[in-house]
């Protein structure tokens, strides 16, 4: 057989590079920590850039959702507008600066993402703690509910509820929270199951602590890391989901355009103004990749067991 020309499955280095195992040689472990730190710093810098742009951007570059300037519509990136400033990313179908729209969109998307995360996180963590701590019928009911929701495509549920509620920022947050609490509930529950019988919790209980105190002071602080990991990964998903809803016209209203809205508007002008859809999409993708990489790196660092999430 032509063995030398065959590719050989690597035998020893595969595991070490992929998932940390306790028996790793120290050198490999150190390299991995270094790469992990690099990933965290790089992705955090990207995210920080977006946050700064979202906070300061709209102040520097005003965006008025109802303004139209027909003289400067569909201008390519880099055009000097009559008003005196250069449209770095071009202008859209009503003469609006695409960059200004994106900065405003960053504000909307990040705000919706964070608000959703807080709402879904609070509901999910509360449900997870209750289910894990008390067990019994409460656990059965909550986890069955989670199962049912997981067997249902979340985008469909979001589309349906959003179509009834109508487009508004608050409604988008509600809709996305409804479809995202389950992940938090599941992770929290499994953490609580592992924690509730640990010695330090038992010790606190023996000292006479009440249930509320045990849940909020002993158990909750011990599972901040896994919850943060899940939150980071989910934030990317939520921002994508919000963009999808807005693209379908079911997300934020026209007065507060998010990236999805801008991309949708550009669809009708693909032949003569490619930049309207293309550039906001790249901006969106980079942010989501940032959260994805950060989530992966944090998970590898703090809780490799969450890998299956």
């Amino acid at each position, binding site marked *: *057989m*032509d*063995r030398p020309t*065959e*590719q*050989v*499955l*690597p*035998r020893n*280095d*595969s*595991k070490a*590079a*992929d998932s940390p195992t306790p028996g790793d040689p120290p050198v490999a472990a150190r390299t991995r920590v270094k790469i992990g730190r690099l990933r965290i710093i790089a992705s955090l810098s990207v995210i920080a850039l977006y946050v700064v742009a979202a906070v300061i951007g709209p102040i520097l570059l005003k965006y008025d959702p109802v303004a139209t300037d027909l003289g400067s519509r569909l201008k390519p990136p880099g055009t000097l507008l009559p008003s005196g400033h250069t449209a770095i990313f071009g202008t859209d179908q009503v003469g609006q600066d695409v960059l200004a729209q994106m900065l405003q969109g960053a504000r909307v998307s990040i705000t919706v993402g964070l608000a959703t995360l807080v709402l879904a996180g609070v509901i999910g963590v509360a449900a997870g703690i209750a289910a894990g701590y008390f067990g019994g019928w409460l656990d059965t009911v909550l986890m069955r509910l989670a*199962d*049912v929701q997981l*067997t*249902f*495509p*979340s*985008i*469909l*549920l979001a*589309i*349906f*509820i959003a*179509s*009834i*509620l109508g487009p508004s920022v608050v409604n988008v947050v509600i809709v996305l929270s409804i479809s995202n609490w389950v992940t938090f509930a599941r992770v929290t529950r499994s953490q609580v199951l592992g924690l509730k019988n640990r010695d330090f919790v038992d010790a606190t209980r023996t000292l006479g602590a009440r249930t509320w105190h045990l849940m909020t002071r002993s158990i909750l602080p011990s599972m901040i890391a896994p919850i943060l990991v899940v939150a980071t990964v989910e934030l*990317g998903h939520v921002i*994508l989901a919000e*963009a*999808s809803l807005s*693209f*379908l*016209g*079911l997300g934020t209203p026209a007065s507060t355009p998010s990236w*999805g809205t801008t*991309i*949708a508007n*550009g*669809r009708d002008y*693909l*032949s003569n103004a*490619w930049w309207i*859809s*293309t550039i906001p*999409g790249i901006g*969106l*993708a980079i942010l*989501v*990749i940032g959260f*994805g*990489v950060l989530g992966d790196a944090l998970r590898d660092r703090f809780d490799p067991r969450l890998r299956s999430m």
Partner: protein
Amino acid sequence: MTAYLFRRTLFAVFVLWGAVTVVFLVLRLVPGDPAQLILGSDATQDEIARLREQMGLNRPLVVQYGIYLGDVVRFDFGDSYRYHSDAMGLVMGRFPLTLQLAVVAMAIGLVLGISLGVVGALRVNRLADRVVSVFALLSQSMPSFWIGIMFILVFARQLHWLASGGHGGFDRLVLPGITLALPLIAILIRLTRSGLLDVVHENYIQTARAKGLSERLVIFLHAIRNALIPIVTVAGLEFGKLLGGAVIVETVFSWPGVGRLLIDSISARDYNVVQAAILLIACGFVLINLVVDVLYGYLDPRIRLGR
């Protein structure tokens, strides 16, 4: 096995009942009058009163719920006011197109996902593996509607290779198929890669090598089987998600399937069709899950015995 089948079927029915109930509750409990919602803001008081009577909105909620369940069991979702025909019939008429799109996406996803995953595992931590991993990350992070638009921009508008939308021959399936398949490809790459790497150290792989099998045979005859069980499960679950994702891809590519009908009906406030479309997709999703569960129980006895 019978007990397992029974349990899974019962759960599927339970999920469907949940979906029906959620649709009912959302339509009835959300602020605002469903009759008003359906007829729009320019309807007269008379028309609203008549529709309320017709929909039974004046009766107690429990009675409405009972009637609704009865209608759902008989697949009666009322008429579409836009097309003046049976809402469920309308949705069923579009379903084959959505199914076609999902099947093509599934095929693309399985072929590309598994083969790229094998490449990644074979050349772990080398250039090819890195490229495959980055590709997986990108396909997972980029919004599908945007990728669809970019495909249209490049392949339809600039290169004129493929049509940008509508339905017809196979060439019109390529772009929406790939767009819909991308998230699936990403998941399958990761699963196949890690599934293969998990067994590299196992004794049975060493045995296969020791008895002189070529590396290719070791992988495709022995190692891949380990990765296959999670692939079957995930591919099945993802097939259901493809039905949901099709809503967006169909909108981008003007593909006249259920998803497109759903979005059009939402903007036209044709709520009978919206309900029918949502419940049909949910039904397909739940049925596929059931099939996957049964297959999984068949492939892996530990699952059906609940261990």
